């Protein structure tokens, strides 16, 4: 079964970034959390990820962007992936220099047509007053977004945000 993939990329990071790996040891900081797909955990999830992002000394707007994007991805997993079932949602975060990657993983029903699901205003649950803006917000508030999904297996939403160069920023290599 083909893994459906949709890449909605903002201006891409320079492609040669990976090559530096061998020269300079990559400095990353990772965090994962797993929680039940209950709606009351939506607030917990976005606050936890935002708290992890404080090491990047983000602006208030960057924090708000991150929280909104995480909230959208987690809400999708709760409503669409699992429906009435309570299962696990996993979030993996990785900070690398001035960027943060966030992955929201579920093992729910999956998405049959990812490009369609990502269209603004498209929703499979209009009866629940869903606006269909979830993926549009993730795309708008993060720098990169990839959605991988397989029906019956689950969905992984991968997002990346670059945090701007604010003065007084802490970086990971500077804590020695």
């Amino acid at each position, binding site marked *: 079964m083909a893994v459906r993939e949709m890449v909605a990329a903002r201006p891409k990071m320079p492609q040669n970034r990976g090559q530096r790996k061998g020269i300079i040891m990559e400095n990353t900081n990772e965090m994962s959390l797993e929680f039940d797909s209950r*709606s009351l955990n939506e607030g917990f999830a976005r606050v936890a990820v935002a708290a992890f992002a404080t090491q990047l000394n983000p602006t208030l707007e960057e924090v708000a962007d991150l929280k909104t994007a995480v909230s*959208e991805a987690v*809400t999708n997993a709760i409503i669409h992936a699992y429906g009435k079932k309570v299962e696990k949602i996993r979030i993996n975060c990785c900070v690398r220099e001035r960027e943060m990657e966030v992955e929201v993983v579920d093992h729910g029903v999956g998405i049959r047509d990812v490009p369609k699901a990502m269209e603004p205003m498209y929703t499979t649950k209009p009866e629940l*007053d869903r606006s269909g*803006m*979830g993926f549009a*917000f993730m795309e708008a508030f993060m720098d990169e977004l990839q959605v991988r999904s397989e029906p019956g297996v689950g969905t992984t939403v991968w997002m990346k945000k670059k945090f701007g160069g604010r003065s007084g920023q802490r970086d990971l290599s500077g804590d020695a």
Partner: protein
Amino acid sequence: MNSIFQIRDNCMTIRVPEELDHHNALPIQQEADEVMMNRNIQTIVFDFRDTSFMDSSGIGVLMGRYRAIQRKGGQMQAENVSERIEKILRMSGISKLIPVNRKREWL
């Protein structure tokens, strides 16, 4: 009855909580629908003075109520929105449908 709902004449004011996400949206949707079923509401005011966070679930709440009040020939507005909430409303296109008034920021 939830205290965040205030009804005066034909106007229903909904004082939106600090965070409006899917979890917090459900009781607001239900109660708003109940009020609108039982009373002749012609104006809905969403008061965002306490609200610092909203995602697309909040847009769903507003859109649903907007459609309902449109059917009755009434009107809707958003009051006391922060810069952030204004941005979310603008991005979703709701700002084109209803008046949105900014919160007075105390400096």
